[in-house]
């Protein structure tokens, strides 16, 4: 039996980063807001206190904070000629669940995309010719929103998190010590950059010697205590080295818990229901309006929750799935190229270079999720791509996030994976090695998309999401070029030896890469090329807004959440200032 509940002004589906931001914004605008979250409540002292937060087995390898895929997963394949099979165990990406979700167990690497990243198609076409954006069956697009449109909202997220960093471009003036390639910032970072440990420092020196432009990674692992605009107090990072994949026991990693929840949970017009999974957005008979959502809780009780506004903030994969299951928008067809929902799924193209020293103690256990010195000289269109045969790029980071021994022991080229030789290599190199990370863009491609699986069903009987994805030649060429640039810096550190971990072969679901899935609910300037407009509003059902990296038409060479948050604030402002006054499409098709 389905119980119909009292209507609310806005229902928020999923309570991670974007759900928390939208809840705060809409509550402040006076709406009665309800958030439905499929996972449990989580707070620092109960769920990841310092007495037990630093548990590699439980959090990283037994997935204690991640989505349990035993009753719902997605299916995966590299191309349409294969049969998609379930992702039976998390690997390549670690999906979040529960209050705070990925915001709890992220690294806290806070980036803005480059101005040219928002113009992937027009910018590259103008500089390198039409084939640069159509080669390899690329389907890249412009975003329909510009860096300048988003700058105030990027800033809003920095103020919320207390981001630690050094501006490289303040109102158009290049600043020493920051990233000279970044788009202009209207303000300095709220807190100074983190102090760098030995590995990142060696990287910075070598990069400078080669004429690159290193700077400290902008981070949500705070360099000093900070009180944000909502009155939340964030502590100073202790470099514990159990950051990404773990919750922070020190209240020093920016997360929904440390930045938004103390404020929003106290609002009298806000309610949160946990262990409540939304199954579908319900539509009016004409399918032009959402009437609310249906959900089921962990006790098996089913509800219909009426709402005037539906905010999908359930991470890109669930957002796209809910759009498909609810019949909002036309599903993408890779054969004809028509339709938009599920189109342009993309990811992140990762490689790395390990460096091994004899004479230098790196002490990798002194680390933090975003502790790195970075060069951005070869990201986006910061360098001339003429004759290179690819578009896009990557940042290269000399990075030490921790020295967790099951996951992070580096051994030299040719070391076997077990036996005495492995043990000796581990004992010899653990304290004296670290890794340069090459964090590359991923362009969208005609054959990479999301749809509903024809065979596999979740515990509620709903079709699983099906992911069809592989890296294309554009990505392989980009990644090889960038890995070579990283190797140059690695060698300039004068180590005993280095090891290149290139991005080879097809996308594989087993090794962790990143939880930076993008696309499928892409934004754009008209309904034939996109699912949502620049305010993340559905072209088809205007009282549905879809947050998250699903809106990215392709992925840039940065971590997504800074841009995800900026888009969320940009959308919230349009909802509050325009939509509430006159509900309907904010952009005319």
């Amino acid at each position, binding site marked *: 039996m389905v119980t119909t509940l009292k209507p609310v002004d806005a229902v928020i589906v999923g309570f991670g980063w974007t759900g928390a931001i939208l809840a705060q914004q809409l509550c402040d605008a006076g709406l009665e807001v309800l958030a439905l979250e499929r996972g*449990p*409540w989580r*707070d620092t*002292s*109960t769920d990841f206190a310092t*007495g*037990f937060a*630093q548990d590699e087995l*439980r959090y990283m390898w037994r*997935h*204690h904070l*991640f989505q349990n895929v*035993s009753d*719902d997963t997605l299916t995966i394949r*590299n191309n349409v000629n294969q*049969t998609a099979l379930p*992702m*039976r*165990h998390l*690997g390549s990406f670690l999906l979040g669940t529960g209050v705070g979700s990925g915001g709890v167990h992220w690294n806290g690497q806070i980036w803005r995309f480059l101005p040219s990243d928002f113009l992937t198609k027009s910018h590259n076409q103008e500089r390198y010719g039409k084939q640069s954006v159509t080669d390899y069956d690329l389907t890249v697009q412009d975003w329909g929103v510009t860096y300048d449109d988003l700058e105030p909202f990027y800033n809003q997220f920095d103020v919320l998190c207390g981001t630690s960093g050094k501006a490289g471009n303040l109102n158009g003036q290049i600043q020493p010590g920051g990233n000279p390639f970044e788009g202009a910032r209207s303000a300095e970072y709220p807190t100074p950059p983190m*102090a*760098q*440990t030995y590995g990142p*420092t060696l990287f910075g020196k070598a990069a400078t010697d080669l004429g690159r432009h290193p700077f400290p990674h902008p981070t949500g692992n705070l360099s000093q205590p900070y009180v944000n605009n909502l009155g939340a107090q964030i502590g100073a990072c202790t*470099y*514990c080295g159990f950051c990404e994949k773990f919750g922070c026991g020190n209240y020093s990693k920016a997360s929904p818990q440390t930045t938004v*929840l103390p404020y929003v*949970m*106290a609002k*009298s017009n*806000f*309610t949160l*229901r*946990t*262990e*409540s999974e939304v199954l579908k957005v319900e539509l009016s008979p004409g399918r032009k309006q959402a009437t609310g959502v249906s959900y089921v*809780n*962990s*006790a098996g*009780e089913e509800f219909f929750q009426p709402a005037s506004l539906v905010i999908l903030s359930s991470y890109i994969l669930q957002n796209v799935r809910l759009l498909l299951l609810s019949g909002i928008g036309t599903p993408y067809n890779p054969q004809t190229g028509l339709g938009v929902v599920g189109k342009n799924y993309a990811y992140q193209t990762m490689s790395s270079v390990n460096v091994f020293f004899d004479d*230098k103690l790196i*002490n990798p*256990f*002194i680390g933090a999720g975003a502790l790195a010195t970075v060069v951005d000289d070869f990201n986006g269109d910061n360098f001339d791509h003429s004759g290179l045969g690819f578009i896009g790029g990557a940042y290269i980071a000399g990075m030490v996030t921790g*020295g967790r*021994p099951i996951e992070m*022991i580096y051994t030299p080229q040719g070391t076997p*994976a*077990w*036996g005495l030789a*492995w*043990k000796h290599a*581990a*004992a010899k190199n*653990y*304290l004296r090695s670290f890794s340069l990370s090459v964090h590359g863009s991923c362009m969208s491609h005609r054959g990479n998309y999301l749809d509903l699986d024809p065979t*596999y*069903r979740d515990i509620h009987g709903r079709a699983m999401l099906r992911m069809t994805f592989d890296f294309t030649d554009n990505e392989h060429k980009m990644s090889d070029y960038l890995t070579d640039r990283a190797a140059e810096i690695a060698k300039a550190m004068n180590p005993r030896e280095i090891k290149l971990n290139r991005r080879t072969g097809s996308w*594989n*679901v087993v090794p962790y890469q990143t939880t930076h899935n993008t696309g499928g609910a892409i934004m754009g300037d008209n309904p034939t090329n996109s699912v949502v407009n620049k305010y993340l509003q559905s072209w088809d059902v205007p009282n549905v807004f879809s947050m998250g990296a699903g809106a990215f038409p392709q992925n840039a060479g940065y971590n997504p959440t800074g841009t995800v948050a900026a888009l969320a604030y940009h959308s919230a402002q349009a909802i509050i200032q325009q939509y509430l006054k006159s509900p309907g499409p904010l952009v005319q098709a």
Partner: protein
Amino acid sequence: MDKPVPGRRQFLIGTAVVVGTGLAGVLGTTVRDGELGAPPRSFRGGVPWTEGQADAPPGVSGEDYKFFTPAERMFIEAAVSRLIPNDEVGPGALEANVPFFLDRQLAGPFGRGDHYYLGGPWPKGTPEQGYQSRFSPAQVYRAAIAAIDKHTRANFNGTDFAKLSDDDRDKLLKSMESGSLQLEDGVDAKTFFTMLLQNTKEGYFSDPIYGGNKDMAAWKMIGFPGAHYDYREWVTRHGEPVPFPPVSFKGRPGWNGES
């Protein structure tokens, strides 16, 4: 629904229905088991927080074996002692008590396939599609040990894997690693090997509360200080040895008189 419950420190239970688990009446007690599904809850008017509740780690106690039969235990000891052999550089997996760790892991939620999707159909799949089996990890171990012993008995004059020479065991482990060893009864040797090696390293390097990494000797070998949480003093002391002896969740020898 959603009415404040006075006297509960802004901690409101709305549609609280406790699902059929040992959790009944858990709210307000000091136990919180994050491995079990929580009941649905509704919050309004403040951050819910309950004093003294902690989702503490599920450590193990005792010395008895719960999952492996004596024969399986011999197999496991013979295998992990080749994956990480003992010498003066540091402990072997056997000396670090990895077989006991594996036993308790397989007897618990991991062994049952918690956090694995095991629904059908079950075609084989490509290497890129990762784990594709109907078996839970405990079933993989049980079936693989039996199939490997069947193989060695047929090919080594009736000898179990555990009784083979170091060299022969290494050769077999290599053929599992490469995928060239064909086993019967639906067992994929490479899938088993990958899992065994991963779990062996887990037992070797995880906190001793899980039964392996005896005396934190594996941490000592590499120089990892364990469960320390504050390195601020050391951030800019580049290249200096950090003199902290390793510490586990249970402390270290010299703390609380424990060892």
